[in-house]
């Protein structure tokens, strides 16, 4: 067993890393459910529309972030190309939406 110490070290590192990962997943999952409940609650509480709509949109953006970065592992290494493509796409979509809301007259 003595000459296996190196392997054991690596294994224990792997185990702590996996535990961390699992913790993150659970926290994110709980937060996602909480955000969804909050979204329903603010609608049910009949607050003013000018507050509710931006607030729900904000929650949605955070949830998308969780989805991408934790559940779909974009926070991990080796996802640089994927994230730059996704942000490129978001940028182009944003410019398009900006155009359609500003310089088209109805």
């Amino acid at each position, binding site marked *: 067993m003595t000459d296996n110490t190196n392997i054991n070290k690596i294994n224990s590192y792997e185990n702590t890393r996996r535990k961390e990962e699992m913790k993150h997943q659970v926290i994110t999952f709980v937060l996602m459910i909480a955000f969804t409940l909050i979204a329903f609650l603010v609608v049910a509480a009949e607050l003013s529309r000018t507050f509710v709509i931006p607030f729900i949109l904000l929650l949605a953006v955070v949830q998308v972030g969780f989805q991408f970065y934790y559940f779909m592992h974009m926070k991990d290494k080796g996802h640089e190309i994927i994230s730059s493509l996704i942000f490129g*796409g978001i940028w182009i979509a944003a*410019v398009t939406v900006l155009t359609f809301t*500003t*310089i*088209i007259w109805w």
Partner: protein
Amino acid sequence: MSLASTQKKSFGAVLWDYLTTVDHKKLGNMYIVAGAFFFILGGIEALVIRIQLMKPENDFISAGLYNEMITMHGTTMIFFAAMPILLGLMNAIMPLQIGARDVAFPFLNSLGFWLFLFGGIMLNLSWFLGGAPDAGWTAYTPLSTQSPGHGVDFYVMGLQLSGAGTLIGGINFLVTIVTMRGPGMTYMRMPLFTWTTFIASILILFAFPALTVGLFLLMFDRMFGSAFFDVALGGNSIIWQHLFWIFGHPEVYILILPAFGIFSEIFPVFSKKRLFGYSSMVFATFMIAFLGFMVWAHHMLTVGLGPVANSIFAVATMAIAVPTGIKIFNWLATMWGGSIRINSAMLWSLAFIPSFTIGGMTGVMLATATADYQYHDTYFVIGHFHYVIVGGTLFGILAGLHYWWPKLFGKVLHEGMGKIAFWIFFIGFHLTFFVQHFLGLMGMPRRYWVFLENQGLDTGNLVSTIGAFLMTIGTIIFIINIVYTSIKGEKASADPWGTGRTLEWAVSSPPPEYNFKKLPLVRGLDAYWIEKMDGNDKMTPAEPLVDIHMPNGSILPVTMTIGFFIASFGFIYQVDNKSWLALVFIGFAIALGSMLIRSLKDDHGYHIHKEDLEREAD
């Protein structure tokens, strides 16, 4: 070559082979052949246009037919000639350049090709089914929503089919370059043609959805009574212009960037010097792609967007001249002090630089928003975009074809004929389009069927038509060259130019179906050149000889496409009679059935065993 492929096969077997192939090199060649066919169709349409405009008040064709000609010329040349030939070159060459054995999704590659081909066939069938689309290649609403007959319906469905194919192709290239680069092939060791393929594919990924959305809206307006573009019912016809150009402007960069990549391969090889400013070339390509998405409204400067929007788009447009200028100077500096060899491929590349620069200069003129009120919709615009598309993209395609012909088809094109074709085409090109700038400045509007005599337009138009005939002669000589080479040409060696720098020249011409017997180890930019300089005549292998895993061919892409093709006819004709909806159901049944078979049937491919590989001579 393997033993099986040297044996004579019956015609049916060859046909079946091409219908079911998933080999990126065969599909590349098929893209090029199909694109050349549509190029000839588009060329004939161009010739008809020029004959009609040869003299004042000509009556060679009727006004309606003239509208159909200009629409079909533009649509065919952009979507079914330039794009597929470029996609064909990317398909055939890019996997070789990164040291891969195929693209990431060989099945999708085949599906993309067949969708493109049937889209083109559908568009051109409109000639025989009651008239072609006649609303211009931009199909501006409300002209396109009110165009009678089924012409524009064929435009919508044909472009929708081929657009899906292009999108599939673009995603395929992206995944291939991200995941399948060979051992040692880092991003900054990729040849420039691979880089431009990568960036053009990003543009395809982001730009084509806008076209898809626009075409769907147009389809629903024309076929199902919606009113997205109908002002009387609360719609807005400007939306089409925005959607079309959000797609359309990146589209012109999709056309020109691969051509830039081709020139960046040719100049170093025939100057015997590495590409000047490699990393600035990559950077400039990215800059062009990035800015390319924020300039679309310069096609709409006279729509009435207001001075703020016009200024923003005008400045952004002019900014694109900067990275393009970087590229031009890099090419010049590549040749500077090199030992230059001038052959047909190099002639097309050299001719590109001044021609494209003129096109770029008129582009900056057009971007000047206030002056554009004068230029808009005149022959000045026609002159401008033919200088960039013919002088840039088409010269690039022809240069690339001469350069890679041995790699694609195993034979070197005849030099003499190549040079004659070049000079006739080059002179014809400038005769045709240079004078059109002045016709435009004198007030000749585009898309008009006739012009009046004694308004200073007679001579210019005659010169332009003569130029068009010279371009036709040049093209015919090129076709004769192809036929002559395929009959008489000698078999090319792996590196027929002798100064090949990139990986595709390290394998035989044409390459075996598995590309690399052993994947090569890439030790830097211009991997093959590095080995040559170290005195090796072969690439250093990165792996021992092992069994090679290959994908199986499949007929399913063809049946899927035929399904969508039939369904498209159902959509077009259900306007006249609801019973045509039966075709929609039949078509979708075929397409979805094929998809189901593809999903449920496991297909693990096959292996080429290393014993067989050892037996083959190199």
